[in-house]
């Protein structure tokens, strides 16, 4: 949907926005509780942290099942096909042009809502970080079930390996989060991107 009079496009659908913000809240909740389990600090207590970490994890898994279904059925997954088109110029803009007040070299469209650099970051999130944290997390949670699940051959890994892998994946995620949140401020106005993610309408400057 485009609204030429106001020079804006409806880029983020209702489900997509719900998915994004729910996922953001769940991931932040899991980071807070996860690093408490890791022993980084004491906030709500170990038992509560374990309870909430698990509860949020299952909620996020259900959300992801819906999100994957949505991406597949709506064809939205195509937004994540990687491209090198304008990749360099976008990188140049963030590294240099932005300080000179140059306009963003990429304009989102209904077929390509993410700029090529952003797209690569999200693809990395979906294909690398998410599987790493889910697989390690499920193995961590069900460490006692490995034998019953015919995963006894993984015993050599043990919690000694699985837990640090899960922690490493968590570091990737929170580092991604910091970069991601900062990048949202680099629209044509400080809050433009965040506004688009809330309303769904991307305004062009």
């Amino acid at each position, binding site marked *: 949907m485009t609204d030429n009079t106001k020079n804006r496009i409806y880029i983020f659908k209702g489900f997509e926005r719900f998915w994004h913000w729910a996922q953001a809240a769940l991931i932040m909740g899991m980071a807070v509780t996860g690093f408490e389990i890791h*022993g980084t600090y004491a906030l709500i207590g170990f038992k509560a942290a374990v309870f909430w970490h698990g509860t949020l994890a299952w909620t996020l898994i259900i959300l992801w099942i819906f999100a994957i279904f949505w991406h597949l059925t709506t064809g939205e997954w195509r937004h994540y096909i990687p491209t090198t088109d304008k990749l360099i110029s976008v990188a140049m803009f963030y590294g240099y042009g932005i*300080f*000179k007040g140059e306009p963003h070299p990429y304009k989102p469209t209904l077929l390509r809502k993410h700029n090529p650099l952003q797209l690569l970051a999200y693809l990395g999130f979906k294909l690398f970080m998410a599987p790493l944290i889910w697989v390690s997390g499920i193995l961590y949670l069900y460490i006692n079930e490995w034998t019953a699940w015919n995963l006894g051959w993984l015993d050599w890994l043990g919690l000694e390996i699985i837990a640090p892998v899960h922690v490493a994946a968590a570091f990737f995620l929170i580092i991604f989060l*910091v970069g991601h949140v900062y990048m949202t401020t680099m629209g044509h106005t400080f809050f433009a991107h965040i506004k688009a993610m809330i309303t769904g309408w991307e305004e062009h400057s």
Partner: protein
Amino acid sequence: MPRPVWKIRKPSLLFPVILALCVLSWSGTTVLASSTTVHEKLEGLAGPFTTGPQVTKACLECHTEASKQVHQTKHWTWSFTNPDTGQELGKKNVINNFCISTVSNTETCASCHVGYGMKDDSFDFSSEENVDCLVCHDTTGTYDKKRLMDGKSLNLKKIAQNVGPTSRETCGTCHFKGGGGKAVKHGDLDPGMVSPDGFVDVHMDADGLNFGCSTCHSTDAHMITGSRYQPLASDHSGIDIPGKTDGTLASCTSCHGDRPMKDEKLNDHTDKIACQTCHIPLFARGDYATKTWWDWSTAGQMDDDGKPFVRLDHNGLEVYNSKKGDFDWQRDVVPTYRWFNGKVDYTLPADTIDPDQIVSINTINGSADDPDSKIWPFKVMRGKQPYDTENRTFAIPHTTGEDGYWKTFDWQEALRKGMAAADIPYSGNYGFVETEMSWPLAHMVAPATEALTCEECHSSDGRMAGIEGVYIPGRDSLDWLDMLGFGLLGLTGAGVGIHGLLRFIFRRKTIAASKGE
């Protein structure tokens, strides 16, 4: 806070009990004893009895096999060959770091032998009439073995006519006073357990479940299950079902199974952690302190009058005794945790020791990789005791009797006599070596509300600090990974900070550019 279960139980039982009593009295029925024999009616028990063996003879008239059964038990033989290690154990053979050894002190130590007249190694272990039935089967509470040994009068007829099953009281006569005094030895057994409340022991709670010792330490032919020499550290057989399992109830698993909790994540712990570890959060949880340190090396000091003396602390606990040396006592003690597979190696009196180390009197075996090992709580008793500096063996003192150290205060003579009795060479040179002895804890099981919280172990300086071979979330981490992770997070933060700062500095250009657009 939920109200503890054992408190709710009292009023809830009251009504049905009163109702039952009313119904019974109204209908005129009488409550029968569970036993099929009222011993008072037996002519053989009419007496008169002047000695213990006379009573035993009378018991054997009906219970023809009883003494033969008792003869097979450690309670009688004071000897046990560990089939796994081949070590000759039992009270006759092992030493500890309390009173050290029974060898030359048998007459005194035998106040806790289930027989009459054990004075030295000439005791006739085949004598049936010398089995002491009453010390375990008295129900009157008036049986006193020491009075009997001292030739003082006891109403043996009344005691014999009222025999019954063992009780917390009869077992406790010895086991609650192990080490020569109340609560001294075990740390998880004290005289308060004759009638404990639910806080001290959730199962033995006199107003609650009211378990006796033999409820768990199930017996067959006088053989009592639940050995300290060869404990079952991991019971893999689950809830005991007659005919299917070994039928012994001396493990938590025997009744509770191996996944008894509502929280499945808690149940996941039971493959590696003994129930006791969380459910016996402290030892000496009752009204009595337990001895944790006994330093024999300071024994023998005399007061200004040249007489032996005793010094008490503000709680009235003996902290020095000229006969025995210095003591420490503790209550509500955090246990020591170790991997344990049930295999215990004893350092026996003839074994060579390394006096430069703290000598383990009993070495607890187990490891994280061993499927029979679990993390168990222990009371670790420490102290200093005599050893032969030349032969590098423990030195056994003769302490009791007129010629024992407690009368003579002469180490050299005491050790000569003790070692001669033990038939171990003694060089004549002695010193004192620091020792430790580990006592697995299995009693004074607390109610669930008192069990350990997660943080007690899942933290860097928690109770599992000394446990190796297992990754404990909250305790363990890879330092390099944390440094790298938080380092990169910090760098990312700094990066966006600098980027943002530059954007702020160059904002005029940005505004100008956008205006110019």
